């Protein structure tokens, strides 16, 4: 009468007993409720904004006002959109200000809220001053503040994802910050190439080159070190997104290395790099969700850890 219920799932009856048996194949942890495109979009836009603020400062300091203005506009636009994405994703959007009720270093989301609350206005003022030409001293101070906070804005989201029980995110905490800042630099540089004529966009090109190279290196280290736990980054929707991003980055690197100054080529490269950065964030987002949904990513590493602690002995009960 009840026999067949226990055999409904393959892992209940088909796997050898040495492997773990889950509870009817159900997930152990809860996958994040965060929605796409809001949250991966936020990761992308926050990175784009943060790195653009650094690019703006670098361009201003090196006497390239046109690129500086473009980067400031990009930063202000991106951070504004990202806040909309964040608030939209709350279960109770009207209470978004509760984020600033406490300051908690144990919560990357709390730190992030305070970052946005300080970085956002700085980026906004810097852009307003640059576009209108008004209040240049205030504009310079805001530009400096945004450039100082921008990198934190681009990097903290790695801790936001990693400080969870989601295996593909948490286990990647050593590499994700570098992937994220690389991806942010790729996006900011790419957008600079789109917005400003090639001969005036040298810093954008440099930033995109550094970012793209860094992102590729950090990504391969991430999936290599995770081993079987890195599978969610290689398979399914996440795998396709990550792969597409890699192709676009490699293509972008190749055209930048060719040194082409053809405006069409450079702008296409810029679009490809911005797209690649977004795809990377969406890929990482989906990989995390997949790793939460399949209990093997939660259970197997934990079993191994426990067995190693017991001196490699197999669980006495088995």
């Amino acid at each position, binding site marked *: 009468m009840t026999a067949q219920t226990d055999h409904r799932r393959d892992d209940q009856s088909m796997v050898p007993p040495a492997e773990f048996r889950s509870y009817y194949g159900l997930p152990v942890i809860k996958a*994040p409720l965060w929605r796409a495109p809001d949250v991966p979009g936020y990761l992308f836009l926050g990175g784009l904004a943060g790195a653009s603020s650094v690019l703006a400062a670098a361009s201003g300091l090196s006497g390239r006002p046109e690129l500086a203005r473009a980067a400031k506009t990009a930063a202000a636009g991106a951070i504004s959109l990202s806040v909309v994405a964040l608030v939209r994703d*709350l279960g109770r959007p009207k209470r978004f200000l509760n984020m600033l009720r406490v300051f908690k270093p144990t919560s990357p989301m709390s730190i992030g809220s305070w970052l946005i609350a300080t970085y956002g206005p700085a980026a906004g003022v810097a852009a307003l001053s640059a576009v209108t030409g008004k209040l240049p001293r205030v504009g310079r101070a805001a530009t400096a503040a945004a450039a100082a906070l921008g990198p934190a804005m681009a990097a903290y989201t790695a801790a936001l994802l990693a400080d*969870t029980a989601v295996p593909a995110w948490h286990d990647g905490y050593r590499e994700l910050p570098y992937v994220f800042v690389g991806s942010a630099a790729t996006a900011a540089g790419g957008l600079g190439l789109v917005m400003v004529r090639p001969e005036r966009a040298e810093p954008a090109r440099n930033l995109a080159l550094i970012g793209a190279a860094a992102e590729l290196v950090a990504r391969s280290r991430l999936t290599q070190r995770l081993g079987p736990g890195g599978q969610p980054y290689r398979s399914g929707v996440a795998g396709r997104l990550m792969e597409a991003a890699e192709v676009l980055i490699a293509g972008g690197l190749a055209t930048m290395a060719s040194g082409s100054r053809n405006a069409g080529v450079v702008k296409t490269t810029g679009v490809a790099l911005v797209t690649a950065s977004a795809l990377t964030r969406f890929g990482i987002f989906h990989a995390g969700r997949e790793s939460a949904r399949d209990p093997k990513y939660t*259970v197997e590493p934990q079993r191994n850890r426990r067995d190693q602690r017991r001196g490699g002995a197999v669980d006495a009960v088995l």
Partner: protein
Amino acid sequence: MSTDTDTRAGGLDPAARSGYAAPPPRMGFFTDTSVCIGCKACEVACKEWNAVPEDGLDLTGMSYDNTGELSADTWRHVAFIEQIERPGAPRWLMSSDVCKHCTEAGCLDVCPTGALMRTEFGTVVIQDDVCNGCGYCVPACPFGVITRRETDGGAHKCTLCYDRISDGQIPACAMACPTESIQFGPLDELRERARARLDTLEEAGVDGARLYGADPSDGVGGAGAFFLLLDEPERYGLPPDPVVATRDLPRMWRHVAVAAAALAVGGLLSGIRGRS
């Protein structure tokens, strides 16, 4: 009220570490699954007392478990595992799962609003009037206890009947349990009782009995709600060796700081003019 910023272990009572001057004894659950009969009275009593909404009236088709999992609308969940394949000794495992009220609680650590708080009893409670539904506690829990309620957008979970125990009552699930599979009391007493029960079962030749969540040196600093199981934790849908993610947070922040510094330096260098 307290808004913890650090729930790290260290042998101290979590309520004391959260700033309560003279907290009462830490209270908890000991769920002895060896005497659970799968009646689901705990599920019903919990829903009735806490006015937890309906969580779906579907048949899962996998077992007598038509509840499925813990969630915003399910604060006690009875798992059913029919082990007819065991040679010579078929058995039917039942276990009433609940929020673990961890000593090092990931949900509490990551909550950005302070909605999640530690009570004077050492339990972990969500303040519904503060929660803004950010959902961060959901993937932060290594046991998959919390979700967001569709109807109100807020996160919800077991409160260990904060209202009842504040008034000297025992939680609704423990009150309703007909076999005393769910026991409520001071955590120290419960741990002693559980060890004695484990000894009894081992002497009686029950194989596979083990305590789960009773060890203060485990990855969550010990659970305030712990279990006596008869098989591997993962068989019941529990993680075999959960570790609160926040333990690695200092290292995460260091990597974030290095990465951010690299972006700042790389960004500023990108402005340097080439020789051409």
